[in-house]
């Protein structure tokens, strides 16, 4: 009985890993310390867990989780509230509809898949902020952020794969 309870607790905690990793990504990317001397913006780390687990374990990354991770990104980055939350949900909708296509990507294709989603998120965010400001904004920083995020996705993917195989897979093989 006690052993079963322990498994239940670990299973519950494992279910929180995707959401918590998204929050951690938002916090890590928004620690206001510039390691690159302000030359390039920080990567959009919060989107990586949303994309990855929406693809792999959508039951552990529901739309509500994507919304709150996006909201955390909005709050911590200091930008207009709700913009990244909306962008993440758009990405979620696209991955949800094209899951078979995205899931079939491997190697460089997997990175290309994330780059596509990152581009969608950036376009949605850019459009929303441009509408809020009633003018077109410069895109250089946004382009840099897309590039940096895609580069950072490679180690992040390795990390998330490890979490999926070592933590979530064994404890949450409930389907």
């Amino acid at each position: 009985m006690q052993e079963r309870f322990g498994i239940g607790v670990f299973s519950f905690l494992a279910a929180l890993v995707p959401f918590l990793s998204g929050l951690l990504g938002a916090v890590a990317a928004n620690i206001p310390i510039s390691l690159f001397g302000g030359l390039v913006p920080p990567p959009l780390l919060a989107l990586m867990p949303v994309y990855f687990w929406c693809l792999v374990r959508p039951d552990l990354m529901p739309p509500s989780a994507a919304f709150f991770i996006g909201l955390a990104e909005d709050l911590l980055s200091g930008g207009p509230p709700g913009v990244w939350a909306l962008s993440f949900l758009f990405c979620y909708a696209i991955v949800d509809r094209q899951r078979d296509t995205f899931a079939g990507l491997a190697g460089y294709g997997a990175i290309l898949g994330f780059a596509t989603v990152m581009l969608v998120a950036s376009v949605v965010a850019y459009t929303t902020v441009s509408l809020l400001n009633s003018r077109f904004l410069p895109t250089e920083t946004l382009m840099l952020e897309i590039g940096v995020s895609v580069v950072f996705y490679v180690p992040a993917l390795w990390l998330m794969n490890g979490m999926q195989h070592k933590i979530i897979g064994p404890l949450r093989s409930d389907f």
Partner: protein
Amino acid sequence: MANGTWKIARGRNGGQFSLAVFVVLALIVVLVGRAQPALFNRARAYFSDWASPALEAARVPVTTVGNWAGSIADTFTIYQDNIRLKQENARLRQWQNAALVLEQRLKRYQLLLNAVPDPELATVTAHVIGRDSRPFIDTIILNAGKRQAVKSGEAVVDERGMIGRIFLAGDHTSWVILLTDLNSRIPVTIQPGNIQAMLSGDNTSAPTLEVSAQGAQLKEGQQIVTSGDGGLLPPSLPVGMVYWDGQTFRAALLADAATSDEVRVLDLKLPPEQPPAPSPNDLPVAAAGMLPLAPPPPKPASTPSPVATPAQTARAAPTAKPLHKAKQPAAKSKAATASGQDDTSDVQDR
């Protein structure tokens, strides 16, 4: 890789509905955030207050590593740098002497003209403990907040010029919106010519200049300073220089927020401006030489009530006259009465 090496879970039936609900919720947040930014700003200030010890701790090694890395590169150019700095120092000494002489002369002129002195500026010196340069925002975080009397809207300068203004003050941290930020708009004056303009950030390193006066001609190299319009920012803070980028006039900023480490927050204690009390000569009619006519004396009651006696009528008439004479000095009133002047001439005297 996320290539289907494990079984992919399918979304539940309610997934689409849930997605739609949260998309609507996100749109609501966008609109509420636009209308009521204070709600979210409070959360941000709380976060920066809470995280400030960690940021302070993290700042030291990052700065040290940055300085160390920079010093390696500097080693190769130390000789040339030394010569350049000596020449620059000599030039700056000459300018310093000129500035001191001009400052003394300015003070003398101010005394002679009885000029209103510049408002006092209380300053708070703060460290930059964080920087955030994102696609839609460009900020730095300072380690001074409300407890150090830092308030929203105050100007932030480094040793070279203005870098931004406080847009959010927590208890012991504050967020600075940089001049390059998309949401930054400050009134500036372009010298020489005293041209008024608006400096608007657009997330590039050089904010744009929007000249408000028609027909004003900007030239490259003109100086940009704060105008002080609105009474929130001090006037004459150095901002940058005008340059033409091929499409529009922009400001090459003097300060570089990316390298600023210690900054000053300026609290403009400008007393509220009181208009001087108007004198009778300030009236437009009097200034034009056209004196106003005296109002006609009020008529005594022409239709005495049937019960009014002659004595009552006699009492009622004098009560109307003192209404006009009440504002006159007592001596003048007596003199006017003695010389038999009427009310009209009395008003003309005034």
